């Protein structure tokens, strides 16, 4: 499968071509080049997937393939960064997800970004992102992953800040980069710690159990926690940053300042699940550190609830979707967190997580692209500017509804199946997490339908010009993704991707499923009652929970806390004092030495009084002084 290398190289080539020569091309050429390239890549990755999954299993699992591999940079005898392509079930699955969504987004952008300034630049960045993301998922070692991890970070930065004249976009991009960078610091330290003890970066070695982190760090603790846990927790910190886990999630809602297709691609479907992917990739090690898995579960659960609550009261449709994304990724994290073993019953969560990753990518991309179409036609992100759009935008309406149903967990849409597996896995672990997640699932259904009704039903807002259906380039991706959403649930996912690699037949646990369906339906009904027709019930309800509403609306003031910490503490209390110290203490010391010399020079000038006799006196006294000293010494 050597041609899988092309999947990586082609987008890189496209990036260079579009980045360097783009401004000389017409929009059309650039767009066609980018989109065409993506189609090729998509086709190739489907081919890879097909070939990979049709190959015979070895001892019951799909073998891990490394079709391409070079040493890139050698640090020590045993530590070296390699660049290569690693194909195993999850990376192949991710290849498919990424190329599919990316391809759709490329196509969609052709319409969405039509006539925008910097159209070529946009496609160049998209190519860069695709390249980086693909590189990330096929990484053969953790350092390669870190490299592409940083690259997706920067492409995300560039794309969020695409409208660089908009201050909000600029600060959002900055925020996104710095927050994830901070998380990456943890990731890096985690890598260093991990590699210091295991003496390798290689996934193959790390996950195959050739070296055991637990064994090499046995007995070593720091602050009462074992070094192995520290390492894995730090690595998870990187994942948490990328995947917007509480409390590092704050960048993601702001990231919605980027063009909507970008949000669909990066901030919904692909990059944000990198954290989940990372945990999944290193799962054989995580299994050996249960306390870290517990931490992941807790963080995921808290994030899921938090994001869902906040999503209920947001008015900007992209923000609702952003919080929904956070919440859904948290679901995946929880699913991984509740996984306790590599095989057997306890390994269900892993599969569920990957499955949800897959389905979520599709329907969330669909939601974002739909939202994009809406924004494209009403030129606003605010719900208040929408309402009753179902008449004007039928395709969008239908596809959006499908996505909403999918995310709410209504069968037979894909979300139902994957979410159900997660709930089942959670219940497997403990009823507490099961109930918690079921509740959050209910909230999800509620806010999604609140969104849906507010956009397509409800009171019709005043439009300056009549909203219209999006062009073909935009609706085709919508329809494609909707179709996928409809059928994806029936993919025998457990057959392809499981923790241990062994085939696993998904069978719905109907008790769990029926409970979740009931909760979801109840939530939908509530939303319908509240939002389908314009009325004052929502306002009254908000009034009745005034404080909760305000706090939720302001995202529990977490941004303000961050602002306080960064500006008031880091800038005011650290940076400025240091800069002051540098100028007024360190530098002043140097200047003081010069000033002292000058003043000494001024003080001793009277020695040179110009008077002959004073000179003679000094002369004589000098000689006498030396003589005196000598006499005293000898």
């Amino acid at each position, binding site marked *: 499968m050597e041609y899988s290398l092309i999947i990586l190289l082609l987008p890189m080539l496209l990036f260079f071509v579009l980045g360097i020569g783009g401004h000389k091309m017409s929009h059309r050429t650039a767009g066609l080049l980018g989109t065409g390239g993506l189609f090729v890549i998509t086709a190739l990755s489907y081919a890879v997937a097909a070939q990979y999954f049709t190959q015979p299993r070895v001892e019951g699992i799909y073998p891990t393939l490394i079709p391409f591999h070079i040493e890139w940079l050698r640090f020590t005898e045993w530590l070296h960064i390699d660049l290569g392509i690693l194909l195993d079930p999850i990376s192949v699955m991710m290849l498919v997800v990424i190329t599919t969504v990316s391809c759709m987004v490329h196509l969609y952008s052709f319409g969405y970004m039509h006539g925008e300034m910097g159209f070529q630049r946009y496609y160049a960045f998209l190519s860069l992102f695709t390249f980086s993301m693909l590189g990330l998922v096929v990484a053969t070692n953790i350092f390669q992953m870190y490299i592409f991890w940083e690259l997706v970070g920067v492409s995300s930065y560039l794309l969020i800040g695409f409208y660089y004249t908009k201050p909000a976009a600029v600060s959002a991009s900055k925020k996104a980069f710095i927050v994830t960078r901070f998380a990456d610091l943890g990731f890096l330290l985690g890598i260093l710690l991990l590699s210091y003890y295991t003496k390798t970066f290689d996934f193959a070695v790390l996950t195959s159990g050739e070296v055991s982190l637990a064994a090499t760090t046995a007995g070593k603790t720091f602050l009462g926690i074992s070094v192995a846990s520290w390492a894995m927790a730090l690595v998870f910190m990187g994942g948490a940053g990328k995947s917007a886990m509480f409390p590092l999630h704050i960048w993601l809602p702001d990231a919605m300042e980027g063009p909507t297709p970008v949000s669909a691609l990066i901030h919904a479907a692909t990059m944000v699940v990198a954290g989940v992917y990372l945990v999944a990739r290193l799962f054989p090690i995580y299994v050996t550190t249960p306390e870290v898995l517990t931490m992941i579960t807790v963080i995921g659960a808290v994030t899921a609830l938090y994001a869902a609550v906040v999503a209920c009261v947001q008015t900007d449709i992209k923000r609702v979707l952003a919080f929904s994304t956070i919440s859904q990724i948290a679901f995946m994290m929880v699913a991984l967190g509740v996984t306790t073993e590599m095989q057997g019953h306890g390994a269900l969560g892993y599969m569920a997580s990957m499955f949800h990753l897959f389905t979520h990518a599709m329907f969330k991309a669909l939601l974002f692209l739909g939202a994009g179409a809406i924004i494209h036609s009403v030129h606003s992100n605010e719900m208040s500017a929408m309402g009753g759009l179902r008449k004007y935008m039928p395709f969008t309406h239908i596809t959006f509804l499908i996505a909403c149903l999918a995310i709410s967990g209504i069968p037979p849409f894909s979300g139902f199946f994957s979410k159900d597996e997660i709930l089942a896995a959670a219940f497997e672990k403990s009823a507490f997490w099961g109930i918690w997640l079921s509740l959050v699932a209910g909230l999800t259904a509620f806010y999604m339908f609140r969104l849906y009704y507010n956009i397509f039903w409800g009171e019709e807002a005043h439009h300056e010009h009549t909203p219209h259906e999006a062009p073909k380039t935009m609706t085709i991706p919508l329809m494609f993704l909707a179709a996928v959403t409809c059928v994806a649930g029936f993919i025998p996912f457990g057959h392809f991707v499981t923790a241990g690699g062994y085939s696993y037949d998904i069978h719905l646990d109907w008790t769990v499923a029926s409970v979740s369906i009931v909760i979801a339906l109840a939530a939908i009904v509530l939303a319908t009652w509240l939002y389908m027709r314009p009325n004052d019930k929502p306002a009254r309800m908000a009034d009745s929970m005034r404080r909760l509403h305000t706090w939720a609306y302001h995202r529990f003031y977490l941004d303000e806390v961050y602002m306080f910490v960064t500006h008031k503490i880091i800038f005011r209390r650290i940076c400025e004092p240091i800069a002051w110290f540098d100028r007024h203490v360190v530098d002043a010391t140097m200047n003081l030495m010069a000033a002292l010399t000058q003043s000494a020079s001024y003080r001793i000038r009277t020695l040179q009084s110009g008077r002959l*006799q004073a000179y003679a*006196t000094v002369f*004589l006294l000098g000689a006498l002084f030396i*003589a005196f000293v000598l*006499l005293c010494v000898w």
Partner: protein
Amino acid sequence: MEQIANHIIFFLLSAVIVVCSIMAVTSRRILRAATYLLFVLFATAGFYFQLDYHFLGAVQITIYAGGIVVLFVFAILLTSKLGEKSDRISSTKRAWGLAAALLGALICGYTLCTHDFFPQFAADGEVDMKTLGHALMGMDKYQYLLPFEAVSILLLACIIGGIMIARKR
């Protein structure tokens, strides 16, 4: 007896030297200072005679007393009015001067007094002129033709320099 006379003369000369030296540096009338200097120089010549270095005493009188002091007197007459008294010396200046002089005298005196001189053997009478002449005109060790020539160049240079500065052009 001769010893006593020697001693008396020595103390007389010493008294003249000490007193006149001090007077020479404190007298406010410049011409008197020059006169005191003359006395000091004479007394010094006396020392030389007493030490049986008659030639040196003669040189002292002719060059110093006869030459230099006369030069001084001419210069004084040229540059100051008769009977003019110089201004009083400020007390700080005097204090510095005294301090420097006393300190110097103390240190030098102390060193000289505590030094263990080893007189090799008693001196024997006068140095005869022939020895002197040979020493001055010889080129061996302890003979001084070269310094003699060198000093002549120095004197020539000083003459040229002195004339250049002092003449009116």
